[in-house]
């Protein structure tokens, strides 16, 4: 539970900005995690997300009824809805997608010179394994 003395303390602008920014990052990731979640919806998904949004850990960091809690909440909404607004902007700008994609996932077919990389390909590009043989930074052994 929040400490009322701490909750009533006046927060500085820097603290408010920090709490808001923290909330924005959490909000962005909450949307991201929900968007890329795999498998069937479970009640535990909601519990996990709700815990991240307004669980006891957040209330311990930002006491309820305090300005920091308010700034965190505003930041959370900015991050969460900011993701959706940017996604909507990208969809509106794209030639291959329109608003129907949000409803049933429809999109236009890829052009002949385009493809969507598999998960394995993306992982290999972004996180090379430890045992790679063509490491450009590895010193070459002569002879």
């Amino acid at each position, binding site marked *: *539970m929040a400490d009322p003395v701490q909750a009533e303390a006046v927060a500085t602008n820097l603290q*408010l900005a920090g709490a808001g920014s923290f909330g924005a990052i959490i*909000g962005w990731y*909450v949307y991201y995690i*929900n968007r890329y*979640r795999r498998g*069937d*919806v479970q*009640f535990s*998904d*909601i*519990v996990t*997300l*709700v815990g991240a*949004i*307004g669980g006891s850990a957040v*209330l311990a960091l930002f006491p*309820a*009824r*305090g*300005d920091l*809690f*308010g*700034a*965190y*909440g*505003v930041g*959370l*909404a900015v991050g*969460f*809805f900011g993701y959706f607004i940017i996604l909507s902007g990208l969809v509106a700008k794209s030639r291959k997608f329109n*608003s*129907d994609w*949000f*409803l*049933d996932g429809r999109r236009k077919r890829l052009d002949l010179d385009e493809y969507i990389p598999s998960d394995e390909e993306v992982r290999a590009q972004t996180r090379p394994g430890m045992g790679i043989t063509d490491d450009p930074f590895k010193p070459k052994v002569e002879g």
Partner: protein
Amino acid sequence: MELQMVGAACIGLVWGSLLAAVARQVRRPVWSALWLSLATLLVAATLALVAGSSWILIGFASAVATAAWLQAGWYQELRKKRSS
């Protein structure tokens, strides 16, 4: 309006939107989505009590109602496109 009220309402808005998004992804029967919604509403009410702000619930209800209204409109438009 004070910052903590706006913040609490924003948390409720995010929460309600998240519920609407998750409920839309439920592949099982409708009662499953209803059960999920009721359970989330209970958790939201508990947090509102702990945080001591009913603005969380106001934001939550607004987001769920807005999402339901928007989705109903979008599906109507989609149905029109399919039938034409």
